[in-house]
């Protein structure tokens, strides 16, 4: 990006399986108001709004930016709505950053949400498209075969998925906003029913309602803020088609390409040692070792070893998902922006009980579709 962009405020809801006391605009306003408060700003200071969320059928509202324009403070302002499957939250944040980097908008508010308890999420996510072979396995069933292929290819022992899940839950206990926070041991996970072998019930993300809002600003305005901002060092979104013959569905090329592009832009040569905290999009626990490899943190087939050694636990070499991640909080449209927002909070030193000490550089990541859409951001303490 030609001009510097910073995160100057973050706000989110306390995510839960249902947020029954608020409707969609009210839920979104909780996050927006918190973000503006955090940034020391009010609605008049915002020049544009970028909204992101997953499919409209999850709430039964088409193009919700229209219904939400008033609630988002968008009246007589520009607003767009991004939709790129599971990666949407992170892509939306990067789109907002692009708006600031263009020089045309000094401060941009970006919001991502999902209130999927209000619709029939399973129906919305498992559509039987006409003339397409029926989805006989659901969302988890789509990814489970590739987790199996990873285990086969890497020789990973079968307890790794459970270790990831137990770690993530331990992390979530330190995050007041996370949805699932009750203690859960590796034994608990291994004892839980196998849903789509090899993925177990307690290795699977929940369905959550929630919203997150972030305020981004240009250099001049960011430096005026009440707090030290998080600077966006690099970000990109890369996508690949589903039906490319011989496509690597375990470590998709689009993810590796995206990571390489972003590291180069941020001047990072050795992510394992130059990044202090990472928020990956892990909806099924096996994706943690898979993404460690895909994002270049671990060599091919060795991501599971980092997990086995505990290197990605809170307090160890490279904490992954100190927020608890998607495994413990999953408002689908917001999850990607939660990764971006949590990475920003770590850099700003404001992650509260789940703050990793000494963070200079953090990574936020999201993916979506049949592992096709990848969105990665690197945030840092320095410009």
């Amino acid at each position: 990006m030609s001009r510097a962009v910073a995160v100057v405020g973050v706000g989110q809801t306390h995510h839960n399986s249902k947020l029954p006391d608020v409707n969609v605009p009210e839920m979104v306003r909780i996050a927006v108001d918190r973000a503006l408060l955090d940034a020391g700003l009010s609605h008049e200071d915002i020049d544009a709004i970028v909204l992101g969320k997953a499919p409209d059928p999850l709430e039964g509202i088409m193009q919700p930016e229209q219904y939400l324009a008033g609630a988002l403070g968008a009246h007589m302002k520009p607003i767009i709505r991004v939709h790129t499957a599971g990666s949407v939250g992170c892509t939306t944040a990067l789109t907002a950053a692009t708006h600031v980097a263009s020089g045309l908008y000094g401060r941009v508010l970006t919001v991502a949400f999902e209130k999927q308890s209000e619709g029939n999420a399973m129906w919305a996510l498992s559509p039987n498209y006409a003339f397409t072979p029926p989805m006989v396995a659901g969302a988890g069933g789509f990814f489970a075969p590739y987790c199996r292929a990873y285990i086969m290819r890497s020789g990973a022992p079968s307890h790794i998925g459970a270790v990831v899940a137990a770690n993530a839950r331990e992390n979530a206990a330190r995050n007041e906003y996370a949805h699932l926070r009750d203690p859960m041991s590796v034994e608990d996970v291994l004892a839980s029913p196998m849903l789509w072998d090899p993925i177990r019930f307690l290795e699977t993300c929940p369905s959550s309602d929630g919203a997150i809002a972030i305020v981004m600003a240009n250099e001049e305005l960011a430096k005026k803020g009440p707090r030290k901002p998080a600077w966006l060092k690099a970000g990109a979104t890369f996508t690949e088609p589903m039906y490319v013959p011989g496509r690597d569905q375990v470590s998709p090329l689009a993810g590796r390409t995206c990571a390489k592009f972003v590291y180069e832009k941020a001047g990072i040569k050795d992510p394992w040692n130059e990044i202090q905290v990472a928020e990956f999009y892990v909806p099924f626990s096996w994706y943690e070792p898979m993404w460690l490899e895909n994002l270049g943190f671990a060599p091919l087939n060795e991501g599971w070893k980092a997990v086995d050694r505990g290197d990605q636990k809170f307090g160890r070499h490279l904490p992954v998902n100190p927020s608890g991640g998607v495994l413990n909080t999953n408002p689908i449209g917001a999850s990607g922006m939660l990764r971006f927002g949590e990475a920003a909070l770590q850099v700003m030193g404001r992650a509260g009980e789940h703050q990793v000490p000494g963070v200079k550089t953090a990574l936020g990541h999201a993916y979506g579709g049949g592992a096709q859409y990848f969105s990665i951001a690197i945030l840092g303490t320095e410009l």
Partner: protein
Amino acid sequence: MSKLRNVAIVGFAQAPIVAENPHRTAPEMLYPVVRQALANANVERKDIDYQCAGSSDYVDGRAFSFSQVMEVMGAWPPVQDSHVEMDAAWAAHLVWVKMQAEECDAAIVAGFGKVSEGSPMHVLNLQLDPFYHASLGLDHVSTSALQASAYMAKSGVDDAGLAQVAARNRAAGAKNPDTQLRQAVSAAELQKTPFVTSPLREGYLPPIGETATCLVLAAEGKAEKMCDRPVWIHGVDHRIEFQTIGARDLTSSASTKLAAKNAFEMAGVKGVNDAQVVELGSTTPAEELILRDALGLPSGLGGTSGGPVVNPSGSPLCANPLMNTGLLRLAEGFRQLSGRAGERGVAGAKRAVVHASGGHCLQQNIVWVLGTERRWT
């Protein structure tokens, strides 16, 4: 206004706009259009560094509908890509912003939507407030009718006036081989068509139709190599109003006025009369009159005339393929200014003002100013 990066439209292609294409799915309709647009812009896919699409899951009756078209955009090896759940005109704006941020230099914008597969009446109802408005069963024709009736009461325009506006557009459409309704119909004939929702007659409403579109944009330095007569973006701005229909002044379009003001300022022009062509994204005659007012154009009724040629394409009244309608207005601006508008070309046109709209009762509006020369030197 500081200097911005000059960005131009350098190519465009579309599928024929038809009521229904029973032979091709949405991606299959888009594939040849993408190939054609790349050929028109003398560029290979590998020299395009960004793509963005505009579409709607509800129009398509599929969640994650946009992922279908990843198969036909030439996205291998993996490409930088995004998608907005909006008319592709907003995808084009996102691309323009990205070029201003110097994050890409050449991009393709795609629009698609098999409107015939679903029922716009049912689906567009879902854009409304679920508690107070959608539950009333309001569809887009009903809300447009509310706006039309408010406008007629305020302005004194009557049924004959609406018919005249519609007839004008139908006459223009007859000269446009790329639109859907290509037969001129007289105002008298249109006035005989039954009311769908009063005061809007069948003849004052667009047909159901579908297409696929692809626009190629490039920054200065690349644009000149891709097109002999690139059409430069001089200014653009978009604004939304809050939705609540009962709380807005439906007889005027405040967001269009503001978007136009900002676009004109960016373009360094005083107003719409600095352009020779105007394309409005109006789907009813009342919308057209409201937009004309917002931009400072004469209504063209009762002998008023002068100013730029408005809606040489026939406007969305002649073709309203959802999710493509806005991009088609931009395409018309490109065709008019680059000598690709054939018989309907406005001779000597050097500047165009292009508008597109989204939501009920002109809730969200985008205004572009295009020109044959670079804006910033």
